[in-house]
């Protein structure tokens, strides 16, 4: 199965990258951009075909390694064999 872990800075944490990119978009003439924040996405291929097992593996990877619980939250999506983003199966959110 394929899965995805999206890791984002917590809302209240400063995101210097997002701020700089937002300003750059302003300078490029993009108006109407309210805010921009940058996160990370991990595309993981898992050998298991059991959604529950896959989800719990992703969950613990996110907690143990992919997200820094002090400043980041994560979100998990399980995808079918199709391309990333398509075939949304389920999703879970957590304060890492």
């Amino acid at each position, binding site marked *: 199965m394929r899965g995805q872990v999206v890791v984002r800075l917590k809302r209240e944490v400063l995101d*210097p*990258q997002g701020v*700089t*990119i937002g300003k*750059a978009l302003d*300078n*490029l003439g993009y108006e109407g951009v309210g805010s921009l924040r*940058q996160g990370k996405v991990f595309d993981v291929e898992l050998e298991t075909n059991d959604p529950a097992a896959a989800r719990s593996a992703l969950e613990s990877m996110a907690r143990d390694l992919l997200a820094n619980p002090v400043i980041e939250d994560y979100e998990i999506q399980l995808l079918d064999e199709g391309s990333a983003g398509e075939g949304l199966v389920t999703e879970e959110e957590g304060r890492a």
Partner: protein
Amino acid sequence: MRVGVVYYPGSNCEQDAVYACRLVGLDAELVWHKQESLDGCDALILAGGFSYGDHLRCGAIAQFSPVMKQVERFASDGGPVLGICNGFQILVEMGLLPGALLANDGLKFRCQDTRMQVEKTDSPFTNAYAEGQILRLNMAHYEGNYFADEATLADIEQHQQVVMRFCGPNGERGAEHNPNGSINDIAALRNRAGNVMGLMPHPERVLTPELGSADGRLMFESLRVALTGMASAENTEPLEVIADV
């Protein structure tokens, strides 16, 4: 003959580049990224550092600075443009040089001396070197791992665009002599016309043996030869350092 050193918010090697130019008798001055014109510069250096904090991708945001339209025109008119470190990253982001720069294979910032061999001396930046000469420059970067896809790479090699490659003390090649994982050990790369060159190591940090090595100095001397035809024009005047303290 004047060299313009282009810098951006977050650049931090612009004064070193000006110093290096002046050391070899070239007139040099800073060009702020918001300038609309190049004020008649005869060569350009895009300085190293962390333009815009290296946010998004190194060099990605700097390519949109107001002055860059002029830089692009200057380059396409055949003017000499040298991108050092972040300057190299900006040149590839702009597409003035092919390929891209990825994170070092060790996934760490690395500051160290590194060896590279000069392959092409028919260039405004290397004409004072001997072909095959092995240089010791200093590097300091996180994203200097040069990458190009197969077709691009073949094209680069075919058109003799690789100016220098990382190597060992006797010119030997191999992973242990390649400090960042660059494909084909590419250390310095030029465009097809030869007037635009980028490299990750810093020639402006190796100008005198007292500070490690003088091997970078010849790159600036080459530029002087290209601009003035003068093979030796040692600056005998005391150097005016940009005093901003």
